[in-house]
């Protein structure tokens, strides 16, 4: 069951954080653009300045997306602020997912209220029902926040057409769905493993930290393989224009989701409630 008051609070939290990132990135981006415009007006060779600006944008995007030319090309129509906010939100989205769902089952287990359910239905139905409910809540909240960011980008960028905005919004939202469902599965697993909701949250956050650590350690050439065990390894290509790269990323996230949900299923069908 979804608790509407909690959904509103979480939307507020997510919205506020996104807004904060948007304001910071937006103001930096605006100041940068103003400076470029100023230099263009003052200089005899504005084309060179504009080229320098494009280079700078490309450099930033390259840093965010590992310099993949195809992605950079695909993102050229999208305002820089949207791309940066999206990348930043991907960093905190897993923690947000943990906050949404840490007590989805541990809360019921700790209060024994799950006992009202297990005599009425299959344990797997309880698990998947809660997962779907949490997923719908999460996807709605992410859509709302993404929509806000894109509308801001539309309002501040005349070149950003409604068609481009619609296409990009759908693409970014789909990427967020794939990304967050894997983390929601991890949250389900932590929640079904522990009767204490606080412990479930702590272990969930510890697992996120472990994945981040794997990603960092995996940057060393000799330990490269380790990165493939971290979901964030597959994040960049979720926006890739080529189907093969996008499919590999999707398969990566789907694999993690199936792994965590499968483990949750095995735990709930055999644990005492």
């Amino acid at each position, binding site marked *: 069951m979804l608790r509407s008051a909690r959904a509103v609070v979480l939307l507020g939290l997510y919205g506020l954080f996104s807004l904060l990132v948007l304001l910071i990135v937006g103001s930096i981006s605006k100041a940068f653009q103003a400076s470029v415009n100023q230099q263009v007006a003052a200089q005899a060779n504005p084309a060179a300045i504009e080229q320098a600006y494009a280079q700078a944008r490309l450099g930033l995007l390259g840093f965010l997306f590992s310099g993949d030319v195809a992605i950079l090309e695909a993102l050229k129509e999208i305002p820089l602020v949207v791309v940066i906010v999206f990348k930043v939100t991907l960093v905190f989205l897993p923690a947000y997912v943990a906050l949404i769902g840490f007590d989805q089952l541990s809360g019921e287990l700790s209060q*024994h*209220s*799950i*006992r009202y*359910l297990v*005599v009425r239905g299959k344990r797997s139905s309880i698990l998947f029902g809660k997962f779907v409910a949490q997923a719908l809540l999460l996807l709605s909240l992410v859509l709302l926040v993404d929509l806000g960011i894109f509308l801001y980008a539309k309002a501040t960028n005349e070149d950003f057409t409604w068609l481009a905005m619609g296409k990009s919004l759908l693409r970014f939202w789909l990427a967020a769905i794939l990304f967050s469902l894997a983390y929601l599965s991890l949250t389900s697993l932590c929640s079904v493993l522990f009767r204490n909701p606080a412990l479930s949250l702590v272990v969930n956050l510890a697992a996120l930290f472990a994945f981040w650590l794997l990603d960092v350690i995996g940057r060393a050439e000799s330990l490269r393989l380790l990165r493939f065990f971290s979901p964030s390894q597959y994040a960049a290509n979720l926006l890739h224009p080529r189907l093969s790269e996008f499919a590999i990323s999707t398969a990566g996230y789907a694999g993690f989701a199936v792994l965590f949900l499968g483990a949750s299923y095995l735990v709930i069908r*055999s644990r005492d*409630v």
Partner: protein
Amino acid sequence: MDHALELREVVKRFGPNIAVNRVSLTVERGQCYGLIGPNGAGKTTTFSLMCGYLFPNQGEIRILGVTPQQQGALKQKVGVLPQDAILPPWSKVGFLLHYWATLQGLENPERCAREALDLVGLAETWNTAAQALSHGMAKRVSMAQALMGDPPVVLLDEPTSGLDPRIAAQIRQLIRDLKGKQTIVVSSHNLQELEELCDAAAILDRGTLVQSGSMSDLTSIGAEFRVQIASGSVPLAELKALRGCTGASLEPSGILTVSFDRSLVAPEEIITCVVALLAAREVLILSVSRGRKLEERVLQLT
């Protein structure tokens, strides 16, 4: 086989501790069955095993032919009043009952939910949030969900604990009304209540079944009676010599206990003979009662 519920050699361990040790018992259809024992006897664990909340380490449990631990097996077969399950605090009572009735697959969930709530006398709480209910009211709402849809087996864990005497009496009456129509298993500390309600019971102690059987067997109602003596000298030797009498003893508190063999003498016959003999010896009597209190039996066994 017409058992409503059967446990065979069931063992449940929590780490190194054995909570339930090779417990076997059967509950017949339509019976009201009590689970009795002191704290830590394994009553709630046995109860939780019956409900499918816990998985046994060993042994077999069957309720109406199905294993409770099998997913969804108890749906529409069993109604459960868990002892310590908290109602989701933010939800309204009507919403919860309606939701559970829907999950249960009842044909008209709202009607079933309203009827069950009415049965426990809380129809007016339909729109009340669970967190606003008193302990007694929450217990009755929990009772309502157990009775929704008239499941053939109803498992009740401490149904009257924490209730005021008037409400407790109402709940007991509710259970009495179910007797014969549904199989009921009641786990309780209140032995007087169990003695009054149950047809049969199992006495547990430290995870082991120490005795089970019909209530009359447990209380020796068919083979023993007690006489409260007010004054006079009790002729024990003469009493023992009566036909069918297998023993007579007098406690310092003035309770005369007479046991007899039912195959040799009818209870009313030997009770009359004993009372007549005592009257003839000018012994004054305060009361006569058949069997012994369940409480005494439990204290003797545990």
